[in-house]
């Protein structure tokens, strides 16, 4: 094991990430074998299944990327799922009821997400409210606003071949998974921002030792708020990818995706204690979550099993994270 860990390639990629990629392969093999056994007449090995899993991975991936920034600062954002839904509902309602041009609606979606990011960031960084409480409150606000704006009606974005349906090319264009390309581009930008810019270093250091950052003369409030703004912005983008994949959005939902995005982050190596974050890990984590969702449905189980499994993963990942920081003796 030590030899493997010290291998140059393993060191460069990271042992944990290699384990996670192994988990993806293992899950794929497991579902491929179990699906025909448990759900006769169904197969897991198909292009459609992969595309379906990717559709799920896109928006979970964007949510996970966003929440990675917040967790890196030592905070948490439990509002990302409902914010994503509120963004999709409000912008979709503008598109279908008020005939607002599609590009403007896409910007509205991002803008709504950003606004929630500003709200969360302001209360956490400038009003010193615990991120846990703040994001719980904004989760309720997001759910409520989405419902009120659409008069508790679900919103259906234009389906393929309909007018204004070009936004779906963001997901898939001529059988090319454009969503995956865009997710990778955004992830690369996030990785550069987090690991190679001063802003990212401030965020990581805030998560590591906020008092020292403050004493060294850095405006911790500004950078902490920025983390929540990035998270909100990416929740707004996730909304576009959600409707691109599923078109219909229902008010009052979305909170189940919080856990999945947080699970993806923690699985990927981002520490709940702050100061340690992995963008690549979050993306791999999102793919695992999506693959599990697809596998569970393919095997004939209901989505409720997915919730149980995600909950267990969060528990296991957070416990592992805490245990790794505990003194052994």
């Amino acid at each position, binding site marked *: 094991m030590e030899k493997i860990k010290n291998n140059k390639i393993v060191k460069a990629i990271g042992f944990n990430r290699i384990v996670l990629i192994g988990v993806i392969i293992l899950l794929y093999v497991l579902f491929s074998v179990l699906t025909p056994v448990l759900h006769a007449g169904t197969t897991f090995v198909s292009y459609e299944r992969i595309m379906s899993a990717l559709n799920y991975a896109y928006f979970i991936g964007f949510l996970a990327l966003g929440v990675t920034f917040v967790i890196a600062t*030592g905070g948490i954002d439990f509002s990302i799922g409902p914010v994503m839904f509120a963004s999709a509902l409000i912008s979709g309602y503008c598109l279908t009821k008020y005939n607002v041009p599609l590009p403007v609606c896409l910007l509205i979606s991002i803008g709504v997400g950003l606004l929630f990011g500003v709200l969360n960031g302001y209360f956490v960084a400038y009003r010193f409210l615990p991120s846990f409480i703040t994001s719980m409150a904004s989760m309720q606000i997001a759910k409520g606003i989405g419902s009120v704006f659409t008069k508790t009606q679900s919103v259906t974005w234009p389906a393929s071949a309909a007018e204004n349906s070009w936004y779906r090319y963001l997901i898939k264009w001529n059988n090319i998974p454009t969503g995956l390309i865009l997710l990778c581009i955004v992830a690369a930008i996030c990785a550069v921002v987090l690991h190679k810019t001063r802003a990212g*270093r401030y965020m990581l250091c805030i998560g590591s030792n906020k008092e020292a950052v403050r004493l060294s003369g850095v405006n911790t409030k500004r950078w902490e708020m920025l983390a929540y703004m990035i998270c909100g912005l990416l929740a707004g983008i996730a909304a576009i990818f959600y409707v691109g994949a599923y078109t219909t959005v229902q008010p009052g939902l979305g909170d189940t995706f919080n856990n999945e995005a947080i699970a993806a982050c923690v699985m990927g190596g981002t520490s709940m204690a702050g100061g340690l974050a992995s963008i690549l890990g979050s993306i791999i984590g999102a793919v695992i979550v999506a693959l599990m969702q697809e596998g569970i449905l393919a095997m004939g189980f209901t989505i409720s099993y997915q919730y149980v499994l995600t909950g267990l993963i969060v528990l296991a990942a957070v416990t592992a994270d805490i245990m790794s920081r505990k003194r052994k003796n």
Partner: protein
Amino acid sequence: MTIPPAYQAYFAETDADRRKALLDEIKAKDADDALLPLCRALWKLRYVDPKSGRRVDLFLWEILNLICLYRTAGWMKKSARKEVIRALEALGVSLAAPYGEAGEAVLSAELANAMRLYLSTCDSKSYRKRLMGLSEMKTGDWQYKVAGDIWRLSEGLPEKLDMKAAFALLGRVAREEFCKAFENGETLLEERRHAKKS
């Protein structure tokens, strides 16, 4: 070389303004003191932002920055090495070099001062928090976390980037100050070393 008694109070103090006043006192007593120009230059380097001129603590920042760098310097080690060289510059290494042994002693005392300040911030609520601030670390876990920071700065990062010589002074000072602050410092560092190897 040891620090002259006149400077003991200066290096014991961690508040920037009081330190400035102490330097002024030393100057009033003996304006030709050989170490005074270096101390003043280090004070300016540490506490004055070269761009905006506002009061900062760049030594404290660089210590934290280097601890963080251990985690982000996975691949692209070349750029991490460049960052370390820049950080060591910001910590006054080249400023103290022309003063020889006396310069090293002064720089060592200045770094120890910054390190003490860093260790004092580790006792803050934000540092001890666990799980989004829902609970606080137990003393043992907290000490282990601080030891982790010191290990990364004094051994982890130098080994990772193969820059042991460049880190010699900073690493030594970090270990010494940690062991002064924590009775079981050596044991904690040994545990960290062992945890990393196993």
